């Protein structure tokens, strides 16, 4: 809990970050940058968890641990994603998301 800083500030930051991440996900053409946007999203969620934990329910560590797990998940997600991206790069010689549309309709 930070003096004079209300919870809502955190929430504004995290929400903004969340939607910035989403915006990035929707517009970045490079698969890796899309992955980065996902990381932003997850990060914003982490902020939420931590802030809620600290400000509202400091007796327990639920948000705290949630955040830890999310990081772990983010890491494994990133690992697999990057593996696939590299695979795609091999196949398509490009990691532009626009090219990844062989299957449609």
């Amino acid at each position, binding site marked *: 809990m930070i003096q004079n800083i209300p919870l809502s500030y955190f929430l504004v930051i995290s929400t903004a970050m969340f939607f910035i991440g989403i915006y990035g*996900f929707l*517009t970045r053409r490079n698969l890796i940058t899309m992955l980065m946007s996902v990381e932003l999203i997850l990060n914003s969620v982490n902020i939420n968890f931590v802030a809620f934990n600290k400000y509202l329910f400091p007796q327990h560590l639920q948000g705290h641990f949630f955040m830890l797990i999310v990081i772990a998940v983010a890491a494994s997600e990133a690992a697999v994603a990057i593996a696939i991206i590299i695979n795609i790069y091999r196949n398509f010689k490009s990691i532009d998301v*626009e090219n*990844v549309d062989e299957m*449609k309709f």
Partner: protein
Amino acid sequence: MDYTYTLFIPLIPFFVFLVLGLMGHKMPPIVAGLIGTLGLGLSTVLSYFTAINYFWTSHVPETAYASIKGFEVPWLHLTEKLTIHLGVLIDPISVMMLVVITTVSLMVHIYSIGYMKGDPGFYRFFSFLSLFSFSMLGLVLATNIFQMYIFWELVGVSSFLLIGFYYEKPSAVAASKKAFIVTRFADLGFLIGILMLSFNTGTFDFQTLTDPHGPAIAQAGGVAFMGMSVLTWSLIFIFVGGAGKSAMFPFHIWLPDAMEGPTPVSALIHAATMVVAGVYLVARLFPVFALGAPDALHVVAWIGGFSSIFAAMIACTQTDIKRVLAYSTMSQIGYMMLALGVSGYGGEEGLGFMASNFHLFTHAMFKALLFLGAGAVIHAVHSNEIGDMGNLRKYLPITHMTFLIACLTIAGIPPFSGFFSKDEILAAAFRDNKMLFAIEYIVAGLTAFYMFRLYYGIFWGKKTHYHHTPHEAPKVMTIPLLILAFGSVFAGFLPFHNLVTSDGKGFESHIDWMIAIPSVLIGVVGIAIATVMYKSETAIPDKMAQSFKHLYKWAHRKFYMDEVYLFVTRKIIFRYISTPIAWFDRHIVDGTMNGIAGIIQYTAYSIKGLQSGKLQQYAFVFVSGTVILVLIFVYLV
């Protein structure tokens, strides 16, 4: 007296029908013919026995003839009150009809053995004849109106089968179709009438219906629709059915075409028996008509009157001998209808009723004779056209004589039977309605005229050269002619006013010479004109035709009734109802169903762009979906 055995009168022909129908093709033709004839002979014997027994042997003089149910079984249970029974009803008119039907039918059977000789459908012909006899007998013996309807339909189908007997001839097929459909249309009226009548009275039974104190007549009052009571309406509808079978205007158009059938058939069905079913129907329900719904009776009278003059006018111009006879039949049945229509109920009042039945009886004899005679002529010259004939009197002496007798009879020349029955009708009409009476005078003259036109055309007239010398028909054909001629001559002396009356009681009747003499005179005038015009080849007929050009043309074209019907069927039913409905079905109803499927397909194809394969677009939809859900369910709901 137990009349249960009368059951067999119709049943014997029925069995004959089954036997011939199922096994006839395996028999030699003559066996089939004999089986048919013998079967009907048996029925005839039974009928005569019944008639003698009913009218004379077991009848106590000076009492009313009773109406007896000889036999009855329930056939179909409809509602609480309504059950269809099958049975036989014995009363004066049914017994009279039994005699008429079996006599004429037997004659026709015998005659046909000769006439149909060599026809590949010989057995078929006899089985159909038996079927018809069965149906007709069942019709007249019906104990209730529904049974009558049942046999009414059967009669219709037998007629259909017989008209279309030469089924390879398209005209015969068309004629049979026409006959069936037109009468079927009329039967719809009959059916509706039955439904109305039975619903209101709670019974189908003739005895209950015609009981002057029964429910039908008791409920006569009240106005239901257009100023007439329910009873009146139902009777009018029933009469529509009768008019259809009896070829009354405007349902008459099937009758001339029905001449496509073999001539004996015309004699049996379209002259003597089936066509009078309508008359019989009205006679059967006569007490209800007379006591409960005089308005309906007026309709009967006027339709009958109009039909008689209408048909007579057409008959004057036709050249096909069977058609002339057909129109003549229509005209004569018009007479009978008119007689019923002008009749009252009970005693002297019921003169018309008696006259009608009387005329029915005599007409059966002489008209059957005329047709069979015509058949003999056709048999000899292989043509129906009057133009192909002439001067046949020396080739066909017996036919000539019997034909002449028949012509005189129909023309109402005393002492032939037609004179008596026609006179009674005129007398009845005179009492009731002068206008109709006048019409009937004219018709009498026309009748005499066209019959003798026919007679002269066939047996006198021009000297025609025949490829084969025409020869008289074999005995098997001429004997029926002679028998019928005998009947035509002497049937008039039967004491009908004591036998067949509206209330079963006899009454005194005598010839009203004030009416009879002018009618005979008119008949003679008609004959005279015909003699002048047609006895030998003259130019008068053509001149007449020229001077009454339009009338002649209209009459010759049967007042364009066929065209009207063609218009109704071809144009209205086919082109303006059925075709649009079929189109509607295919394109609108079915099109809607297909359209729904098409729209679904179209939608499926048009939204395929949603699945663009682009990851970011998917994500966009995902996010927007979430946002929209939030918008709706957090802020709007």
